[in-house]
Structure formats: C-alpha cells, structure tokens
C-alpha cells in the first residue's frame, strides 16, 4: 500500500511541472498585459510603463521569469495579485470553500441520482424507462451549461420567483466566516432564516453544475451494470436463492462501481471546469469566477498561481480516487 502511494505521489511531480509551464505560458499568449489594462483609457507614459514592468519583473527574459515563478512556488509563494495586491494563496483560500461547497453538493446530487438511475435503466434494459433516462442523459450531456443555467434562472427565479438569482446568501444576513462553507456558517451564526437562505441560493447552481456529471455517471453506471449482470457470479448469486435486490444491489453493483468510481473522480475535473461557467452565471464568489475575472484583467500571477492550485486539487482528488479504487477492487490491492 505504501509503495502504491509513493508511486502515485512520484507521478505527481512531472504532472505538476507540466501544469506550471502551461499555466505560465497560456496567459502570456493572450494579447495585452496587466499594466496597460490597469492603466485604463488614459494610458500610461512609456517611462512609467517600463518602471512598472521592472517592478513586476516582466522586463526579464521569459525563461528567467518562469524559473523565478517556479522557484517562488517551491518556497510556497504563489505570487501576489497585480490587481488586488493580495497574496494569491490567501485569495485562493478565501474563495475555494465557496467552490468546494458548490462542487461537493453537485457531485453528491449527481451520484445520488445518477447511480440509481443507471442501475434501474440497466435492470429494465430496453424498457420505456431505460430509453427515457438515456435520452434525458444525452440531452443533459449535450446541453451548453450557460444556456441551461439561464433557462433555469428565467423559470425559477424570474417567472416562479422560487429561488434567488445570484450570490451565496441574502444580503440581510451577515456573519463572519468560520469554515467558509455557507451552509455550516449560516447554521453556526444562529440567525433565523440564514440557513434557509443559503440553501435556496445553492439549489440552482448545484443543479446546473451537476447536470453533466449526472448524465455521465448515469450512462457509465448503466453500461457497467449491463456488463456485470451477464457475469457468471451474478448467476451464482441468484442460484443461492438471494432476493433480486441483494443480487443487483450487492453482488452486481459492487463490481459495477469499479469503473463508476473512476468516472466520478474524472468528473471532479469537469466539475471545476464547469464551476467557471456556473459561478459566472450565478455570480458565485468562488475560484471559477476569480479565474475568469483574472484572465480578463491579465492578472498573470493569479492565473498562473491559481491554475496550479486548482490542478493540485484535481491531482489530490485523483489520488484519493486511486486509493478508493484499491479499496473496492480487491484485485489491485496488495
């Protein structure tokens, strides 16, 4: 087990370097630079421009800039935002709980509906139910997220007025963040209605963010189940006189979950990418929105530092998935 873990950790090093190069290079490929964008319409004198370039180190050769950046990261310094002048790591830590809260809710929703739907579709293969589920899943998978988000806002926030349009909680409530998770903080604050407000703000973004993972998980569960249901050991389980619920829910599902867990792990990456759109639509103050804003402002240090932190999170999740995979699949355990 330890060797397995070390192997996985060792693989993270080249991945990390690769991500750092891409994060560093891509933001610089975009035309424009932070100084001109900060200066706004009035512009900046050539003299002052060069002075500012030197301040941020943009006058050095690009390779030197990269190694400066890499060196700083190895010392735990992810840079300072050019716009807000706050350390990138600090901004990340403030905003990440919002994204994490949204992502966790979305993955829970996607798993809680996707797996049962997939099982049901597989067991009733070819039925009306199966075809409807797979049809809906295909639509969900193909739909542009921002369009879907806007549709839901128009219906539930506009016409029906059931849910708020944007933000994490109503402005009526104010309390100091403790955990950064609004659901928990609102409960801790003890203010009446705060938790309800936090939940109602969370519903639409969660649904929007969960849509693609939900469709993918349902389809993957269905196909894994179909494969497993025709295995000999499922016949053995039935030959024991076990009830269909136990045969399907235990003997078949346990095996079908192996590929599904991998899929769920991969969806976490998709989720963080989806968060960029979802957070923008719902003005959700998370890292997705933060990244988009920083790209528009060409905030080099935020984009390159933030991307690396996000990539780190995804790698961490994948590591956890690998470990869980070992737990549910005895064949790869040592």
């Amino acid at each position: 087990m330890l060797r397995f873990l070390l192997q996985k950790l060792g693989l993270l090093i080249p991945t990390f370097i690769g991500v750092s190069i891409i994060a560093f290079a891509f933001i610089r490929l975009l035309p424009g630079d932070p100084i001109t964008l900060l200066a706004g319409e009035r512009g900046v004198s050539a003299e002052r421009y060069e002075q500012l370039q030197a301040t941020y180190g943009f006058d050095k050769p690009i390779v030197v800039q990269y190694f400066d950046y890499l060196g700083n990261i190895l010392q735990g310094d992810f840079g300072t935002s050019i716009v807000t002048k706050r350390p990138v790591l600090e901004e990340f830590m403030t905003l990440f709980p919002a994204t994490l809260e949204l992502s966790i809710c979305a993955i829970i929703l996607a798993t809680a509906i996707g797996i049962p739907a997939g099982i049901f579709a597989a067991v009733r293969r070819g039925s009306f139910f199966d075809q409807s589920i797979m049809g809906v899943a295909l639509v969900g998978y193909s739909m542009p997220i921002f369009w879907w988000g806007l549709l839901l806002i128009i219906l539930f926030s506009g016409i029906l007025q059931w849910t708020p349009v944007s933000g994490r909680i109503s402005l009526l409530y104010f309390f100091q963040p403790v955990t950064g998770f609004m659901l928990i903080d609102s409960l801790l604050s003890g203010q009446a209605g705060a938790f309800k407000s936090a939940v109602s703000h969370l519903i639409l973004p969660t649904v929007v963010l969960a849509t693609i993972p939900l469709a993918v998980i349902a389809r993957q569960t269905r196909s894994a189940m179909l494969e497993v249901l025709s295995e000999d050991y499922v016949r053995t389980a039935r030959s024991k006189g076990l009830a269909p619920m136990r045969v399907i829910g235990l003997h078949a599902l346990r095996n079908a979950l192996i590929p599904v867990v991998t899929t769920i792990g991969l969806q976490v990456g998709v989720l963080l990418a989806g968060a960029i759109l979802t957070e923008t639509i719902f003005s959700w103050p998370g890292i997705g929105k933060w990244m988009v804003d920083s790209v528009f402002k060409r905030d080099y240090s935020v984009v390159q530092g933030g991307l690396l932190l996000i990539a780190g999170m995804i790698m961490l999740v994948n590591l956890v998935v690998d470990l869980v995979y070992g737990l549910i699949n005895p064949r790869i355990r040592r």
Partner: protein
Amino acid sequence: MSLLEIRNLSVTFDTASGPFRAVDGVDVSVDAREILSIVGESGSGKSVSMLALMGLLPDTATVTADVMRFDGQDLKTMSKRAKRSIIGREVAMIFQEPMSSLNPCFTVEFQISEMLRKHTDLDRSARRKRAIELMEAVGIPSPEKRLGTFPHQLSGGMSQRVMIAMATSCRPKLLIADEPTTALDVTIQAQILDLLKELCADNNMALVLITHDMGVVAQMADRVQVQYAGQKVEEQNVNPLFADPHHPYTAALLSALPERATARGHLPSIRGVVPGQFDRPPGCLFEPRCSFAVASCRRGAKRQGADLGHALCNRPLINGVPADEKVEA
C-alpha cells in the same frame, strides 16, 4: 416417488431472429441419492433445462412444463419468493467456470456464509465455524487461513472446491453440477469428481451431473440421460447404456471415445453439427447425421419403451444393429 420430477419441459428463447426452442419436451426424473448424468454435445439443451429448473434463465426465455415437482412441492405454482427459499437450500448448483462463478469483490468466507445467512438461523460465529467445516470437507488445506482470501487468489480447482462448499452448505437434497470439471486440469478433474461422489454418499445427496464427457459418465453415474438438440433421445442405467446403446446417437458418441477406438485407423466422429435455429430437420432431428436413417425418419421419430432405453428412434439399435434388420434376418 422421485425427488425431482419434470415432465415435458420446453424452453424457448426470444431471439432477434425469432423464437428458438432450446429444450423441447424433455422429461427428467431423479431419485433421492441417485447420480443422474445428462449427456450431450454443446447446444443439446442440457444446461438450459437445469437452469430453467433453478429459475436462472434470462427474461427472454419462456419455460413451460406439464409437471415440475421437487420433493413433493410443485415448483410451477409456487411464488418466486417461496421458490427462492428452496433454491440454494434444497437444490444447489455449481457451474462450468469456477473462476468466474465466484464474485471477485468478496472474500471466500463472505460468499460461503452468505448462503448460510440466507437459509439458516446460524449467528456470525456459527457461520464462520460452519464455513471452516465445509472448506475442510471439500479438501481446502488450512481453511482458517483461506477465509479471508479473494477469488483471484485461488486456482481453478480451489475455486471449484469453494463453489462446492458453498453449494453444499445447507445440505441440499439435490446438487446440480453443470460441467463442473470441463475448465479444470485432468488431475484436478478426477479429484473434484471423487469429491462430488463422496459428498453425495456422506450427505445423502442426489446429483445431476451435466457433461459431454462419456468417461466422466462411466466413472460417476447411476443412470444416464442422453440429449440431442433439445430432446431426450435415450435414457438407461449406466452399465446397460455402455454395453448396448439403443439410439444411434448414443452409439456414435460411445464409439467416438478414444478408449474404444481400435488400435489402428481413425477415431470415428459424428459428421455434421447439431442443427441450429434455422436448419432443424422436419422429422427426427438426428436423421441428417444418422448412418441408419431411412425415408420414414424424415417424417418423425417414435418413442420406444423402457426395454429399448426410451430411445426416440424409429430404428433403435440392439447390439449395434437396427432392430428391424434383426427381425428380417
């Protein structure tokens, strides 16, 4: 009264290209403590008829029978739930591919004691004790250590022993073994067959042994039922069957045994293959491959009496010669 009695069992599969009748009017009866062997080529419906009894066929299969009775209980009118309390406890089954028949995600102990949990009132520690006993009885060395192993850590022979331990855990009255040794090495084959025979004697258990290996039949069976293309073509006790097969198909199967082939010359084989869904002959199903067939065989085959092994044949053989030729001679 026999332990298991099935009359006129038919199984039809709905396939994309129309219905396919895999089992066609087969009777099976097994007495208590008896070893019945069902023999036939691939596609003769021997496994399907037993899977139908166990209720293990997919939904695309339609099963009909005039009588389906086990130990005095009518399986036809029984609810699914009631049938599940018999399946596993009183009738158990082991399969051809032991390696894939055990669930790769669960330990040996879990899979054996699951059967005990379903059908007995034993508590956790009693189930563990019984599992160890069972593993000992099927010849698994140091069973305590093996409890926690997963199927992928076992060899084919060991897996089949675990399957047998599992199947016999509730002391069933009937065990169905579907080609239990086909996937195993020859040396392991003999051990598993000996084990099955021993367990039958020790537990007063009847055995239905499905096989295509006449050598296995000779070693194991009390009585033999020969199936061809979904029909029962002959049924006799083992010694008379080997001495004097009445159906030409049985005779051909026996003469294809390497042990019976003459020292020089070819090993005889049966030309052609079992008819499939689209090339079923109109009359006797074996007629196109039969070396004794006459014109009347194309119109159908007659069921002979017990003295001629219930052979489904117009010209049953007596000592290797069609009965009607003998009359003429």
